[in-house]
């Protein structure tokens, strides 16, 4: 399920964030001219474009991501420091492991799994098998945490959480802003991007 939005234009820009890391930032313009943005620090432009399309749709309709996906189970999400490796983005292996009962908590890096759709599919499977999901913000970047929070709002399971590799606050709020709810001003270099058209 890519975002059901008619895309008129898309562009991906490389950005140096304050930490010195490189991010890809995508902008999608829908047919009505509404812009949506997405990003990734793992340099997979597809993730950023997918995110941007959902952002454009949410902004165009004036609703947060969870409103588009069906609703929200929570207003805040637990943020937990956790060093356990995330489950590799290998769907075949994950399904086998789930059937074999090898997981109680699915540690998923949404940036590695590639799309909102994939996370929703994993969430459906997790719900069926009564498993909870932990979403990894791999670099603990505030944008990553905000995006994970937007996704986590839609996930069933009382132990749903965001995991980071460093010390962090105990919880994060789910944004009610239209789109994916990321505060782009957190990175000053974002404003300086010269988007075509």
């Amino acid at each position: 399920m890519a975002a059901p939005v008619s895309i008129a234009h898309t562009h991906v820009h490389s950005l140096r964030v304050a930490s010195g890391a490189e991010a890809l930032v995508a902008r999608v313009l829908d047919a009505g001219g509404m812009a949506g943005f997405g990003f990734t620090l793992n340099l997979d432009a597809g993730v950023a474009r997918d995110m941007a399309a959902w952002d454009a749709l949410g902004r165009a309709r004036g609703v947060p991501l969870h409103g588009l996906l069906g609703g929200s189970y929570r207003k805040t999400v637990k943020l937990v420091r956790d060093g356990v490796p995330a489950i590799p983005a290998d769907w075949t292996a994950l399904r086998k492991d789930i059937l074999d009962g090898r997981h109680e908590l699915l540690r998923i890096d949404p940036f590695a799994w590639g799309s909102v759709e994939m996370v929703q599919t994993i969430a459906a499977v997790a719900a069926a098998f009564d498993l909870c999901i932990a979403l990894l913000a791999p670099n603990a970047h505030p944008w990553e945490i905000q995006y994970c929070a937007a996704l986590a709002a839609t996930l069933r399971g009382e132990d749903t959480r965001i995991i980071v590799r460093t010390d962090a606050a105990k919880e994060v709020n789910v944004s009610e802003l239209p789109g994916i709810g990321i505060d782009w001003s957190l990175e000053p270099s974002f404003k300086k991007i010269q988007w075509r058209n």
Partner: protein
Amino acid sequence: MVHAGSMYVIQKTERTVVELTLENGVTGLGETWGTPDVYSLAQRFAKELPGKDALNRFALRDFLGKSTYDNRFGRNGLATLAGLDLAAWDATARSLKMPLAELIGARKRESIDVVSTLPAAILTKAGTRKDLTDHLDVPANTRLVVEFALEQVRKSGFRSFKLKSAAYSPEWDWKLLNELREAMPKARIRFDPNANYGVATATELCRRLDPLGLEFFEDPTGELEGIARLKAAVKTPVATNMWVVKDEHLVPAIRRKAVDVVLGDLFMWGGIDAWRRMARTAHAFGLKPALHSVYETGIATVANLHIASALPEVEYPNDSGLHFLSADVLAEPQQVKDGSMRLPPGPGLGVTLDRNKLEKVTLETTQIGGRQP
């Protein structure tokens, strides 16, 4: 003409129609079973909805509570929830000016193939059980069902059929299905005796039917263990709408490799998100989700079209019984042409109630909160 199946002789259908009006004035439509129990529960559950956020359909489900809609009231609770849930999804989609299919996932298809039910037997008038069995004792009477199927092809271009077996005689079913296959070599034909054959009889019959290349055997026997054993013995896919009908049934069916197709009914599963989760999970483990339906008005029929359009996991044609009903409640006639139905344009379900039509078939109305629509 009277159509007989394994579970009942249907001469009418009763449904509960839901209108849910938001504070912004947008009204969403829902529908569910029309039994007195479900109608009563719909009134009870609906009283809890005013003031809630329709954008948060998950919360509506959680608010009503699993112990309320599932454990305590069983299927009726889930069906009630589904009717209210559908109205909330429709109202939300209309408010966002999105087709319901887009809100569910995407509007990937504009027309959806639908299935015409074929009765086990066609009687000229209602009669006793003995009249039915006397009819089924005459092998030549299978031709009436074949003629009925061909009439559906001529009238509406149906390419997909479901034979509702009476499970009275494997020989009747074998003969009839062979005749249907001969009369319609390219048609998709599903066979549904509603689990009224025992495992041994069903397995023997289904093995004999394998060469016909039917679309699937729907509930040829029961229960989950029996259907799993049958599936292991036949080549034709096996579907169920009886043994995998709620969240808790899905994982055991996946582990047991009990079925190939989960023929999920929106009202048994308890609403759009529950159905969508089932479809994604089933598909993830190699099962195919498909949409079951009995005799619903245009509201639920169109809802099923949107679900099928939205979810790429759905590949099989939708069940549909709307074309058998003598009346509907929608202003826009929902017709089957060339064996398929088109998604209506516009936001939400894309349909409107025809109040005159609704009034003619209404048995009872209850308003909860707010103003009269």
